[in-house]
């Protein structure tokens, strides 16, 4: 069992308590922790009076609109509700919606605009890794705050970004553990779209599986282009790979658009979940909403949240969302929950810091906790990632997931994968004394990327 990931080890606990302390401290006097030099360069200093502007940086057109529009909707809902509750620090929240149109340079431009022209207190946005990468320098330079709600490949830990989605060890590895231990899988197909998230995730998984004693002969890694729609040959390959007399599973990091044809092909070839289960990391309720789910029943997905989760808080939020969009067909998914958590943690942090000043809020965020919709508490750790439960769900006829397994405890994110040679010694920790996004615990020094 992968216990090392499930238990919050002592060091983290220590840092967490430090985090709370530090956060509390910062909460008291804000002016002090903003060195004047920074104040000068912090072009993005936000006004301390009047409505608090919140940037929403999600593609409303272009290829990514499919995934990102719901995130915009959920943010508008959260802001509206917060305002009903009297806003933050008695100041109303004002959403600033822009459309980066699935165009990466435009993401950077819009980020710049939100920070330097609209002077927003925080930005909720991005989906693809590339969009995050393109805005990252902007946020670091203008010292803004980005809350990034999507599960990603890790290997990053910026002071100005709060990663409310899952790091690989909060999704991929528990999923593989489940297949290994609960389903008894002996042979692995790592099928992904050819970009960074699948590449990295698969590298981590490969390393992990090898460590668990699987030979290269039992691991097949394969990549297809974006929006790949003719899966006949690939699926045939998978089927014959799965006919070597060992239980085989597909670990899918296939990107949104290519999934529908992929599952349709599986279904038509009569590959049932009972023969070769597919566990997906990028297929959620949103994606299933566009699919005829009959052939998918029994296939798996690993997330930190499912709409079907049976908690009062979840039921309430989901209902509120359907009401807000007045459309019963709308679904709620993991990144939306991430925004829900991120937003609430940010609100608490602002109230704790009693200011919207970016430096103050960035420090105040650490240690703030909020209930997950899937139960237990999400805490913002010093590495700017959340503690999350990991759920394995099976696709049901109705397009919902049915949780079949769940990590016993919360999983602490490891943005720097211990299974990759280049990052095995790295940790991120934004509390003093480290205050460093990539700290080499062996060399005991910070590799670039530290507090400006």
């Amino acid at each position, binding site marked *: 069992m992968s216990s090392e990931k499930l238990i919050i080890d002592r060091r983290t606990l220590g840092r967490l308590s430090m985090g709370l302390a530090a956060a509390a401290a910062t909460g008291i006097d804000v002016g002090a922790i903003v060195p004047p030099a920074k104040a000068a360069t912090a072009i993005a200093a936000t006004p301390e009076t009047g409505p608090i502007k919140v940037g929403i940086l999600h593609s*409303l057109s272009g290829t990514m609109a499919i995934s990102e529009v719901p995130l915009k909707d959920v943010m508008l809902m959260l802001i509206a509700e917060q305002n009903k509750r009297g806003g933050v620090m008695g100041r109303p929240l004002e959403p600033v919606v822009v*459309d980066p149109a699935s165009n*990466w340079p435009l993401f950077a*431009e819009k980020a710049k*605009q939100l920070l330097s022209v609209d002077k927003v207190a925080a930005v909720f946005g991005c989906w693809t890794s*590339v969009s995050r990468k393109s805005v*990252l320098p902007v946020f670091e330079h203008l010292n803004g705050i980005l809350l990034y709600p999507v599960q990603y490949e890790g290997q990053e830990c910026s002071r100005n970004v709060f990663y409310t989605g899952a790091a690989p060890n909060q999704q991929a590895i528990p999923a593989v553990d489940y297949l290994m231990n609960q389903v008894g899988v002996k042979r692995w197909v790592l099928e992904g779209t050819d*970009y960074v998230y699948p590449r990295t995730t698969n590298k981590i998984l490969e390393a992990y599986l090898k460590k668990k004693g699987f030979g290269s002969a039992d691991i097949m890694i394969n990549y297809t282009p974006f929006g790949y729609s003719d899966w006949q040959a690939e699926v045939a390959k998978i089927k014959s790979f799965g006919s070597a007399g060992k239980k085989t599973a597909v670990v899918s990091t296939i990107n949104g658009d290519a999934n529908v044809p992929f599952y349709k092909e599986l279904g038509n070839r009569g590959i049932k979940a009972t023969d070769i289960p597919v566990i997906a990391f990028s297929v959620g309720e949103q994606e299933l909403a566009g699919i005829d789910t009959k052939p998918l029943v029994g296939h798996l997905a690993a997330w930190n949240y499912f709409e079907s989760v049976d908690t009062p808080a979840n039921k309430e939020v989901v209902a509120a969302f359907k009401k807000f969009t007045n459309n019963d067909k709308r679904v709620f998914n993991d990144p939306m929950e991430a925004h829900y958590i991120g937003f609430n943690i940010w609100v608490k942090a602002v109230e704790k810091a009693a200011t919207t000043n970016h430096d103050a809020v960035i420090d105040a965020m650490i240690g703030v906790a909020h209930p997950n919709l899937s139960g237990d508490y999400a805490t913002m750790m010093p590495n700017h990632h959340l503690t999350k439960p990991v759920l394995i769900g099976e696709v049901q006829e109705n397009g919902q997931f049915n949780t079949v397994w769940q990590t016993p405890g919360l999983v602490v994110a490891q943005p720097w994968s211990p299974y990759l040679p*280049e990052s095995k010694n790295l940790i991120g920790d934004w509390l003093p004394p480290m205050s460093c*996004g990539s700290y080499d615990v062996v060399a005991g020094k910070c590799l670039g990327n530290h507090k400006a």
Partner: protein
Amino acid sequence: MRLDRANIATLSCVLGGAAVLAAMNLLIPAVSPLHVPDFVIAIAGKYLCYAILALAIDLVWGYAGILTLGHAAFFALGGYAMGMYLMREIGARGVYANPTLPDFMVFIGWTHLPWYWYGFSHFWFALAMVVVVPGTLAFVFGWFAFRSRVSGVYLSIITQALTYALMLAFFRNDMGFGGNNGMTDFKDVLGFPLNRESTETGLMLVTATVLSLSFLLARAMIHSRFGKVLIAVRDAEPRTRFLGYRPESYKLVVWTVSAIIAAIGGALYVPQVGIINPSEFAPGNSIEAVIWVAVGGRGTLYGAILGAMLVNLGKTWLTSALPEIWLFAIGGLFIVVTLFLPRGITGLFTTRQPPKGSKQASAATEASMREAAR
């Protein structure tokens, strides 16, 4: 003469405008309402790069009647060449503090630098590559295409195929150009920190200058006898053959020059937007760039610059003002322009005849098409 007025007007707009913006950004204190925020400088620089691309397209489309739907490919190639230099410039300041390997290579587990990355640590080499790589590609592509008399729509389509193929190629992580994420997180250029205001302003001014120079170059080309032949080719290609000219070699020259101009635009674009990745090759981008030219007015050069500026200004404004429905506006604009302003915006102000030839050329293509229907 009109030509010179056009020259002066354009140059003073581009250079003067840039200078004023720069001054209002650097000299006027941030508190004053007259202060121009860095954001404006940044997008101004970006637009100027787009203007260079538009200029390059107008040179081949407006004057040689070659409708290229793949010019963004050269733009992006130039960008990649510059991006590679900027990556090397980061040096050990990357996330993994690897002195030689860019982060994304460490990231996909490469152990040493691939050969085609050698030399990019030198600025001059990168500059050379900015010109050489796209130039060579354009030359080879054009040499094949024009020699075998691929023209009109066929040419447009294969230029699309070219940029599409390049996009897919650069998407592949194995190519060693950062795959889908491309290159980003640049630190500085020639030692100037990219995120410093003065650097941004400087780059913007450089871009304005380059734009002006390419404008003058293009201008000079089309007013030379070479340019007259070019127009002759556009208007009645067979006739030029019977006069003893080889249209293919004329097209090839202007095509290559145009590609190089576009590439330089791309090279200036990357440090200003801070990222270069395969989506720059997307077929749509090339088409959009052609539309800037159409909106501004084809066959005028300054029209191209104007078009690029206006359309992108509109885009920036609309994506914030009406993010939900801005596509209606921009799409509608393209339709209206092609329907009611066949000569673009500048067509409204100039009394010049429309570039008939292009019309003839297209009429010819259409004729061939109609005939082909047999």
